[in-house]
C-alpha cells in the first residue's frame, strides 16, 4: 500500500497498518513527542491502534520543537 508520509510517497508491504504500527515501522522512538495528522485531521492518541490506513492516505508527523533561546 502507498501512503504519503510527511509529503513523501512510501510503499508498505504490510496489508493492514494502523497508526500504532506506522509509528513502529517509521521508527518513531518517542511517540509522545509527535502529533499525528491523517488526511488533515488530527488524531487522538487513544485512537492510534484502531485507526487503519488505506491506500493513498496522507499522514503527517508533527514533532514538538520547544527551543528558542
Amino acid at each position, binding site marked *: 500500500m502507498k501512503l504519503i508520509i510527511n*509529503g513523501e510517497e512510501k510503499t508498505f508491504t504490510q496489508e493492514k497498518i494502523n497508526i500504532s504500527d506506522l509509528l513502529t515501522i517509521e521508527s518513531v522512538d518517542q511517540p509522545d513527542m509527535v502529533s499525528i495528522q491523517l488526511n*488533515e*485531521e488530527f488524531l487522538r492518541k487513544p485512537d492510534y491502534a484502531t485507526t487503519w490506513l488505506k491506500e493513498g492516505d496522507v499522514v503527517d508527523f*508533527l514533532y514538538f*520543537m*520547544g*527551543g*528558542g*533561546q
Partner: protein
Amino acid sequence: MTLFTDEALERYSRHIILEDIGIEGQEKIFNASVLIIGAGGLGSPIALYLAAAGVGRIGIVDGDVVDLSNLQRQVIHTTADIGTPKVVSAKQKMLAINPSIQVDDYHTMLSAENIESIIAPYDFIIDGTDNFAAKFLINDACVLLSKPYSHGGILRFAGQTMTIYPGQSACYACAFNAPPPPGLVPTCSSAGILGAVAGMLGTIQAAEALKYFTGVGSLLTDTLLRFDAKTMAFQRAKFKKNPRCRVCADPQKISLTDYEQPLCELKNHA
C-alpha cells in the same frame, strides 16, 4: 503626503522601493507594535530586523541576564553584555540601529498572572521562548485576547514555525494539544542548537510580522513550515482549525494558568 523626513525616506528606501510596500507600507510598519517574548536565539534576530525595519513600537520580554553560553547564537548580545539583563542589552542595540523607534523592555518572566497585561498593548506577538510551558501559555493568551502571533521552535539543526490568526486560523494547540510529558523534552540547553538555525527561523518570524502589517503575500496560517538545516529541506504541513481544540474551539472558556515546567528548564525560562 508622507510624515517621513528625508532621513527616514533614505533609511527605509530599500523597503519603499518595493512595489508591495512603498511609502504606505512603510507607514504601516512605523505605526505597528510588536511584542517579542524572549531575547535569546530567536528573539535576537527578530529584534534586530524589526528595529531596523522601523516597527514603531517594540516590546521585549525576558527575565534572564546574558550568559557566556548565549553568545554562540544570541547575536544581539556581545561579550561586554555578560551579566546584563537581556532586555537591557537588546534595547540598547535596537535603539543604536534605529533611534526613531520606541522599545519597551520587560525584565520579567512571563506567567499566567502578567501575560495579559504585557501582551494587551501590542498588535502582533512573537514567541521566541525556549520551553513548552511558555509556548502554550502564549497560545492561550493570544487566542483569548485575539492577538495574531508567530510561533517558533528550534532544536539541534531544525526549526519550525506557524502563524496564528485567532478566530480565523488553527492555533498551536489545534496541532499539538498540550505540552509533552516533562522529562521527554529535549531543549537547546540539553540537546544543543546550531546558532545559525536560530537566525534562520527568527528571520522567518520577523518577515511574517512585517507581512502581517503590510498585507503582503500570504501568512503561514494553517501551515507548519519546518526545515532541517542538515539537508536544507523545507517542508510545509497544512492543517485545519481543530473543531475539538482544547483552546480555540471555545475561547471564552480559556482561563490562563501556568503549565507545568520541567525543573531543568527553569533557569533558562524566558
